[in-house]
């Protein structure tokens, strides 16, 4: 049985302190697009300086290091129970080393566990796959952006929309407008279409692992992703809600089967501090990837 504890600590450090290059590039492009001397340009300048400082000093990009959400793909015969123990141990170590802020509080009492572990905290999803190595993905999702997520049941008395691409578009635009700059824009929207209330949101969050510049395998969803990114940016909300040209860096949509009675559109909002990394661990050799 492999011990991946120290590897996972490295993964956490990397996610928390070293923003992925595709996100940094997108932020740089967004800064260049804003009017010289505008508040939007200034905000993005500050963001980019902060990203560089965090990388150099090894300090968290944002103090809200969020909920650690892990996705683990393991070969046949590797114990998921053992991996879960190792991941929880890694989270405790990463908290001690200040890569993570102690962020797990009991839901009702508000008492902080002090080490980022608790009931279903961190979140860990497992999947067995056909390869002979382990892959671990990590998303650090801050509370401010998580609060801007949304789920639409279409149609409903509160939200009239059609059960098709037009309805998905309307829901995503509505959610982006409601979020304004509160989720620390410019962010990335993960969208799940179909499923039930749980799987729909899970699909939305999984989209956040996609590289910003990738192409959706479905041509119609790919077209909608690009259209929505353009249209949300036309709303003019801008970085931090100061007004400006870039409100989102990307929109990523995933589809899943649903029961005939339901049509859910779920939206996960990820802030500009889009902290996601993937690690592969093969016979002691480790590779860190920006996205999957």
């Amino acid at each position, binding site marked *: 049985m492999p011990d991946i504890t120290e590897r996972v600590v490295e993964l956490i450090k990397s996610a928390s302190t070293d923003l992925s290059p595709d996100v940094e590039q997108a932020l740089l492009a967004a800064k260049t697009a804003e009017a010289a*001397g*505008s*508040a939007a340009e*200034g*905000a993005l300048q*500050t*963001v980019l*300086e*902060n990203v560089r*400082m*965090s990388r150099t*000093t090894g*300090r*968290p*990009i*944002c*103090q*809200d290091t969020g909920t650690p959400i892990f996705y683990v793909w393991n070969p046949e015969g590797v114990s998921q129970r053992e991996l879960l123990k190792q991941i929880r141990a890694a989270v405790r170590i990463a908290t001690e080393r*200040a890569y993570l*802020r102690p962020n797990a509080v009991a839901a009702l009492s508000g008492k902080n566990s002090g080490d980022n572990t608790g009931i279903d905290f961190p979140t860990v999803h497992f999947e067995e796959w056909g390869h002979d190595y382990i892959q671990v993905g990590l998303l650090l999702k*801050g509370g*401010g952006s998580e609060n801007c997520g949304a789920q639409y049941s279409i149609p409903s008395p509160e939200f009239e929309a059609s059960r098709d691409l037009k309805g998905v578009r*309307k829901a995503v*635009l*509505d959610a982006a*407008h409601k979020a*304004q*700059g*509160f989720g*620390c824009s410019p962010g990335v929207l993960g969208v799940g279409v179909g499923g039930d209330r749980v799987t729909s949101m899970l699909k939305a969050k999984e989209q956040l692992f996609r590289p910003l510049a990738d192409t959706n395998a479905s041509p119609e969803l790919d077209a909608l992703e690009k259209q929505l990114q353009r*249209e949300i940016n*036309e*709303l*003019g*909300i*801008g970085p*931090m*809600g*100061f*007004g400006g040209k870039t409100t989102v860096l990307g929109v990523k949509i995933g589809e899943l089967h649903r029961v005939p009675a339901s049509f859910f559109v779920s939206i996960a909002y990820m*802030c*500009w*501090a889009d902290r996601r990394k993937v690690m592969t661990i093969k016979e002691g050799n480790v590779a860190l990837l920006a996205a999957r």
Partner: protein
Amino acid sequence: MSTRLTVPISEKDIRALHIGDQVLLSGVIFTGRDAAHKYMVETFIKGKCPSGERVLYDVLKAGLRGGVIYHCGPVVRKREDGEYQFVAAGPTTSIREEPYQGAVIEHFGLRGVIGKGGMSEKTLAACQKHGAVYLHAIGGAATLIAESVKQVVAVHKLDFGVPEAFWQIRVEDFPCVVTMDSHGQSLHEKIEADSKRKLAALLGQ
């Protein structure tokens, strides 16, 4: 492009600011969030200030006149020489202090409140009446803001916990944007309304 402001700030300098203006703030300010605001209102503004709290009251009265409160729960490290150092100090969501903020601005003569996400009508009215602004810090820029904290002057009410205590800090060129000014204008209201019109146009309504 930024206006430089140094605490204590005059009313004239505040009245010259408008929404969208960028500010680089320097001087000694105080952090304060939920527990601090509740305490100030209950102990000093509505309450009679028991004698045990008099020392802090005098510190706050002197430091907050023309001064600034920052909505922030910092990550703080105690160095080997015993001095405190700010490690991460991004803004926290301000709207939770809406019930208290107007009274605190009026009572202590605050000229500025720094936070994230903006505030509502009561605070906007207090800014207009008493000559104060709401300054929006860059959410998530925790490392950069911590670097702008040059010295921890003192900490008060550490028994509230590290994030909730009053940290009296000297900052240099702390970057923020005026999103609520002393002329009754709110950038948050304006952007919300503008984007709502554009949304309606996109949806063909």
